[in-house]
């Protein structure tokens, strides 16, 4: 009971606020590296949202989705970093 209250009134709003702030940086960010860091934070907070949803619904299968999402986010960040490095030579 207290877990439902805390997740719906504290944890989910904090994670959603983190998403909003990261989207602000994604729109404003002066360089491409800023936007990639913002994407990294969006990936982390959405993985957090998946994890908290797994707790509130009791579906432990969602943990697999969260871990695979973390893997994909890491690989895409590495690919974007490679793109910044190779941008001048392409």
């Amino acid at each position, binding site marked *: 009971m207290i*877990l439902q209250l805390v997740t719906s009134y504290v*944890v989910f709003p904090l994670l959603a606020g983190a998403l909003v702030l*990261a989207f602000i*940086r994604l729109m404003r960010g002066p360089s491409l590296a800023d936007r990639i*860091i913002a994407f990294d934070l969006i990936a982390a*907070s959405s993985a*957090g949202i998946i994890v908290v949803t797994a707790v509130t619904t009791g579906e432990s299968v969602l943990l697999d989705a969260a871990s695979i999402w973390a893997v994909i986010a890491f690989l895409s960040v590495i690919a974007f*970093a490679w793109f*910044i490095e190779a941008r001048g030579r392409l």
Partner: protein
Amino acid sequence: MKDIIIAFIMVAGSGFIFLAALGMVRMPDVFSRMSCVAKAATMGLGLLLLGLAIYFGELGVTSRALATIGFVILTSPIASHRIGRVAYLDGAPLWEGTIKDELAGRYGAGAALEGEESPSGENREGEGASRKSP
């Protein structure tokens, strides 16, 4: 009792992620933003996964959650290091209050002067490793 512990851990984890996002908006240059995300988001996601592991309390779920925590702890510094390195080489401006730039002169025009004393693995990027002027 278990619910209270899980609620505390999850509030701490989401608070860390929110602080990472706050630093993301407020910090002055790319490198401080990168350090915010690298530390605080790793800590936040790790605490959320720890809360999930305590909530379910089964062997399979706990081992998968611990594996994911280990993966995040291993990969987040690598990703941040890559982003910081290419942002530096791409000529991202430093904050005007920066007091030390240890890579200054190691890439680009000044690299020929100090190239001998740098370790051999440092210039493995080849011709692309020259810092553009901001």
